[in-house]
């Protein structure tokens, strides 16, 4: 009886661990080349996140991005360069006392997503990709608090996709 109880506890606790560690999944976008999936999970007993983005084609899943400890907050799939294929803007929380974010942009080139831009900073930043001025050109907008000045002021960073990467238009 004791052995059966012990075995039951072990099975249940193992199941609980698996459930607790199961990543939270959400669909970012359905693209011609497959379904983009965001998986979020925290490494147990720590502050590191094991988030990742996969491209699922049928039963196959290919990892295209791993957060390496950072917490993915938002992924935006939008075509920035007008080639008909969406770029991926990834917004990550860094967890430090300064409340900074890290952003990466992935571009789909020759069948794979490659990182083409990285920027760190932007306190409490929230990103969007829009054509705000109706010019037909989509840009990246990051609303954030500029803590480089005292007292901090709210600001918007605007980036344009030029020569295969993002370039800031104005400070």
């Amino acid at each position: 009886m004791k052995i059966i109880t012990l075995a039951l506890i072990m099975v249940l606790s193992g199941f609980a661990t698996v459930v607790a560690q199961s990543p939270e999944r959400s669909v970012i976008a359905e693209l011609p080349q497959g379904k983009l999936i965001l998986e979020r999970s925290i490494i147990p007993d720590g502050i590191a996140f094991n988030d990742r983005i996969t491209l699922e084609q049928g039963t196959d899943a290919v990892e295209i991005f791993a957060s390496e400890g950072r917490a993915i907050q938002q992924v935006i799939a939008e075509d920035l360069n007008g080639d008909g294929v969406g770029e991926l803007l990834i917004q990550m929380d860094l967890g430090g006392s300064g409340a900074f974010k890290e952003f990466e942009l992935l571009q789909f080139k020759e069948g794979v997503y490659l990182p083409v831009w990285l920027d760190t900073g932007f306190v409490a930043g929230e990103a969007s990709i829009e054509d705000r001025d109706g010019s037909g050109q989509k840009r990246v907008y990051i609303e954030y608090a500029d803590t480089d000045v005292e007292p901090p002021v709210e600001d918007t960073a605007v980036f344009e996709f030029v020569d295969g990467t993002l370039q800031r238009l104005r400070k």
Partner: protein
Amino acid sequence: MVKKYFPLVAMLLLSCNLLAQSVGGGLFEVNTAASDAKASVIATSSAGTNKNSVGDAESQKVRSGLLAAIVDFLTAISDGLVSTASADTGVDSSANILANAQQQAKILGLATNGSVASVTKTIERKTAELKAKIPQLVKHKSIGGKGISAGSEKFKTWFNDAAKYSKDWKFPDVTNKYGQKISREDYLRAIIWIESRGVHQSSSGKMTKSWAGAIGFMQLMPNTARGLKVNASDAAQNLKGGAKYLGEIFNSGSVSKKDGAEKLIMGACAYNLGPFSKSMKMTWDQLKTAKIPVETRSYGLKMKMALGLELSASEKTLADKWFVPKGQTVDEFTDEFYASAQGIAR
């Protein structure tokens, strides 16, 4: 090589032995009366603490640091490293080794011409000189009302409880410009001072909160506090959370792979920016001029100040530009900053 340095090594080992005895309270004592005039340091402990005994403890700490420096030097000789050490940055251990080598070379000059006694006197004088440079630490007082601060009655208990979490940190051996070995507790003090100036809650009961929502003594972000399984609003848990967070920084991620003062400075930058930022793969020399927030780069400089690490000329220029108040020199600000940070929980 061995033959050339044998008399030097033998002489220094002998002086180490003598110094070790003095660290243990033996053959000779630093003249605290002389140094007390300027800096008799550290009259910061709570009521009832004997000032002289604290001063003696500091003396011993300085001597221990000096002893460690001499041992480093001997190790450097045996490893044949002396000729390759760099004294430029003041950050890596090789810089310390060269500085120590130069210091010991001066001692050697005396030793070869004089007696062991003159060597020990020189060491004694150097120890006293270093001790005299330590700014008098600030005694933090209660801020009254509903305030919770480094001057609160229970603070020392909370601090000591939090410091237990620092035992597991992979913490480097670093000696500061005063000849003191930097402890885990010193590091916690520095973080508390940089983050919150030692105030968790104001006298009116308002929680110390950043623009972006970081809370309390250690300025924990809500998500980070959740991951650390602490309630950031509770002062004691906030301190524990900060100590646990520093454990993550020192033991995993990019900072864990660094060493010496570099690890201490980059650990501070990671505390502010986030330990898993790709910027943390840089060196401090790269980071301080990198395209990342000024706040994070300032944090590294403030940590150096709070730990008593020497700032280079270029770092002083940056500090002056970024955060040293007008009308105050960088050196004045640094002394005040060190005295306030290291006065916490004494």
